[in-house]
């Protein structure tokens, strides 16, 4: 196995293929072989697609040969891991749920179409069922393990995507983030996780968890890879009403412009949020200092309603989810349980098809929307959301970038929180404010705590990903942490 090839970043690999030092096929073969070698330990995939990877890699190579590099986008030659919540035509898409065990979509998600028709997909990554969870233990296909420590969770819900990249089963991955599901597993697995601005990447073909929060995001080895992958999937989509008609900038071109004069605010409420470990806090502070040394002006920022984000999120997300999961009813696709009447068929199908966490959140969301409770829960949560958006707006008057921990701790042990929903939910406390406000946020490795990676979160205003990536790149440069394939 070519360890050197697997150690490259996606960008470096792409450049080598572009220069014909390597071929896309060789890359796909290397990924396939690595999957064979480590998947037994990691369980990062629900479905691996080695033939698809090879076939499409051949097509990319063919195009490179025929048309020169011009017709082939830089990113196209690099094998990609796709979270199993993105609709892939002809390849089963389970969303980590039993209810979709045998479901094969008839269309591709727009983000994948944007990447290119010859997307070299190595497999569909494991995840918490319908993206609900922070540990990937809520998958009907078994938990994924953290390559840094196999007894620990990789985070969630995009835990499969994170673990696959951390273990070298692919160079990069697509995850989805509703309340931290790209950032938190990125943090737990020592890599970069970017949640773009809501509306930046089309949600068409992303099986909805919470429609007003969901975004597809890159999970990569470094910031440059995140910028490149974001470039590949972004853009306006007429099939998604919530896809913004905002021009996609060239994210790579401004990456190295430096951060001189950049105003960085350390978010007090999130630094002091419940459960944030002191080492996590000090790693975050260190990154702020690094940014200052690199030329930024660092100060204290306040998001007064930030800690109300978590309860608001745990009303809004389940409410939308309870409605979004209603389509899984055993009529048009997916599993169906036998029953003599249709309503009993619904009940049994959904009882057998959904796991515990899905049931819990369906119940929670249904309750929050039900007659007599709507105003106290859902309507109030939507107002909290307005306050949080206002908080960000005023913080961004004083700062270009906000900094906070991505999550309170490093990766926890398997089984640690799976039976304690509240403890699990508490993990999202630092991640959900950006989700509710729809602003972009990135988690980058800040250092190690007891040998485990700790993530630091940077946030910026709507559609200012170039600024965010620039800050992230600068922070990465001044940190001692470098991506390392595990185990």
């Amino acid at each position, binding site marked *: 196995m070519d360890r050197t090839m697997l150690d490259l970043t996606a960008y470096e690999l792409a450049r080598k293929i572009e220069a014909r030092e390597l071929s896309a096929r060789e890359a796909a073969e290397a990924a396939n072989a690595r999957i064979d070698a480590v998947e037994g330990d990691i369980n990062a995939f629900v479905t691996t697609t080695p033939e698809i990877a090879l076939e499409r890699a051949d097509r990319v190579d063919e195009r490179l040969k025929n048309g020169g590099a011009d017709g082939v986008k830089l990113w196209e030659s690099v094998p990609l891991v796709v979270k199993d919540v993105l609709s892939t035509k002809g390849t089963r898409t389970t969303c980590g749920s039993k209810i979709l065990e045998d479901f094969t*979509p008839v269309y591709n998600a727009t983000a994948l179409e944007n990447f290119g028709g010859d997307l070299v997909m190595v497999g569909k990554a494991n995840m918490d069922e319908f993206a609900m969870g922070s540990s990937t233990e809520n998958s009907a296909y078994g938990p994924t393990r953290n390559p840094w420590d196999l007894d620990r969770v990789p985070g969630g819900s995009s835990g499969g995507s994170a673990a696959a990249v951390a273990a070298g089963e692919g160079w990069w991955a697509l995850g989805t983030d509703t309340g931290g599901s790209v950032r938190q597993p990125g943090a737990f697995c020592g890599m970069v996780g970017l949640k773009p601005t809501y509306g930046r990447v089309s949600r*068409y073909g992303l099986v909805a968890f919470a429609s*007003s929060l969901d975004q597809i995001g890159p999970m990569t080895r470094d910031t440059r890879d995140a910028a490149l992958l974001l470039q590949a999937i972004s853009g306006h989509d007429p099939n998604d*009403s919530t896809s913004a008609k905002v021009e996609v900038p060239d994210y790579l071109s401004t990456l190295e412009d430096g951060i001189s004069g950049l105003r960085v605010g350390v978010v007090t409420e999130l630094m002091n949020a419940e459960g944030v470990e002191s080492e996590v806090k000090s790693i975050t502070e260190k990154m702020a200092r690094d940014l200052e040394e690199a030329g930024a002006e660092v100060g204290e920022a306040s998001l007064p309603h930030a800690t109300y984000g978590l309860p608001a999120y745990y009303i809004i997300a389940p409410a939308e989810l309870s*409605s979004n999961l209603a*389509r899984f*009813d055993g*009529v048009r*696709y997916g599993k169906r349980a036998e029953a003599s009447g249709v309503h009993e068929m619904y009940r049994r199908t959904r009882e057998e098809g959904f796991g515990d966490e899905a049931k819990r959140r369906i119940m929670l969301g249904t309750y929050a*929307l039900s007659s007599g409770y709507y105003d106290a829960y859902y309507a109030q949560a939507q107002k909290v959301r307005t306050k949080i958006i206002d908080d960000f707006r005023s913080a961004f008057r004083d700062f270009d970038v906000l900094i906070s921990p991505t999550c309170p701790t490093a990766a926890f042990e398997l089984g640690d929180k799976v039976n304690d929903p509240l403890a699990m939910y508490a993990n999202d406390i630092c991640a959900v404010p950006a989700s509710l406000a729809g602003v972009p946020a990135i988690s980058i490795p800040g250092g190690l705590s007891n040998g485990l990676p700790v993530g630091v979160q940077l946030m910026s205003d709507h559609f200012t990903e170039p600024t965010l990536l620039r800050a992230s790149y600068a922070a990465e440069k001044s940190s001692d942490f470098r991506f390392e394939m595990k185990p």
Partner: protein
Amino acid sequence: MAETKEKQTYQAVIGLEFHVHLATRTKMFCGCRVTYGDPPNTHTCPVCLGHPGALPVLNEKAIELGAMAGIALNCEVADHAVFARKNYFYPDLPKGYQISQFDEPICVGGHIDVPTSDGTVRVGITRLHLEEDAAKNVHVGESGRMHGSTGSLIDFNRGGTPLMEIVTEPDIPTPEAARATANQLKAILQAIGVSEADMEKGQLRCDANVSIRNLDGSFGTKTELKNMNSFRFVEKGIAAELERQREIIEERGRIEQATMHYDPNKDEVYSLRSKEEAHDYRYFPEPDLLPLELSREWIEDKKNRLPELPAEMKKRFVESYGLSDYDAGVLTADRDLAAFYEEVAENADPKQSANWISGDLRALLNEEGIEISDSKVGPKHMIELISLVETDTVSRSAARTVLEHVFESGDAPSSIVERDGLAQTGGDELDGVVEAVIADNPDEAERVRGGDKKVVGFLVGQIMKATRGNADGGQARERLLEKLGS
């Protein structure tokens, strides 16, 4: 007698709810075609099948048509409108929710003026909102079992068709007025082209909320009446439901809130109770769609593009053609009939044209149950027929016979007159007939000469008989009296 008196003390309170397919080419939230009668499940896509990850995008035309309908119904078009999810489970509902509008509909607060036999009734429009239609359930067992299964089969072609719901205030006093309201609404929607509103195709559906006012003037418990698939059944169904409620009240029973169905074969209403009745639709703003912000200019533009409405047309017919309110109302209630009339009235006496079209021709159409557009009678036929009467070529009564023949064959009136010898008997020919009748009835003729007018009618009748009706009655009488010197 006592019963009718008692009946009159009961005051009906009727509100109607219409569901109307909008005349778009494609569905509300996806690019699948809107079709009628195509093979099942041939017009679907991931969006209208509710596939995982698929998203809705609003059809702009549907918004325009909805706003235009609202303007035509004198509603206020909202400057801010929101789509909401209505959550419930049913096999014809692919997403487990219907995308509809809830507390911020596109139009609110309008009215229409409905002509009834008791005068014009103003019916308030509470709201008009846009939504998507459900798919079609085909119940196995209703039309014979299939493969021994006992369930339902679903065709998603209709699923997602743009649908407009129009809710009236409970302003309608009688079943007849309910029917007239439905007719008026249909005429308006057709006139402005927002819907074909063909009930047989399911493009227009009507439900009614029916109650009887309590003695103290407050509203009684209302029931919802569904499944009325023609306006005639709307009238009959409401009448049957009112009768049922009246009987309950008279027996001092309590009216239960219920959903009733009308069975036209038995002319009865019955309650259909479902086991799964816990309704709590959990409406919330549809997060996959963004709000509508319709500017004043946009709304003004739609207003300016509205074609003439039936009420405006009616007013014009009265003013420029000198028609009665009634005739103008009848003619403008049907967009095609109004156009037909205008073509005829350009080339013939407008009042005569109105008499023929709103009277004889409409009677023939009603008898056959067809629309003017399906009839063989064209405006040219009508113009020719009226001119034949005006030039005394045919009598008014013979002209009726000619019209019947035209209605059946589509032949030109003049050729029918010639073929069937229906030309009016007049002049010398009529004189001859009068003389012959006098000769054949000497006794009666003598009595008339003696001043007895009682038998004049008999003799005129004989003249008409001899001319097979092709004489003008007044003319025949005139000649007869002339010849008998009285």
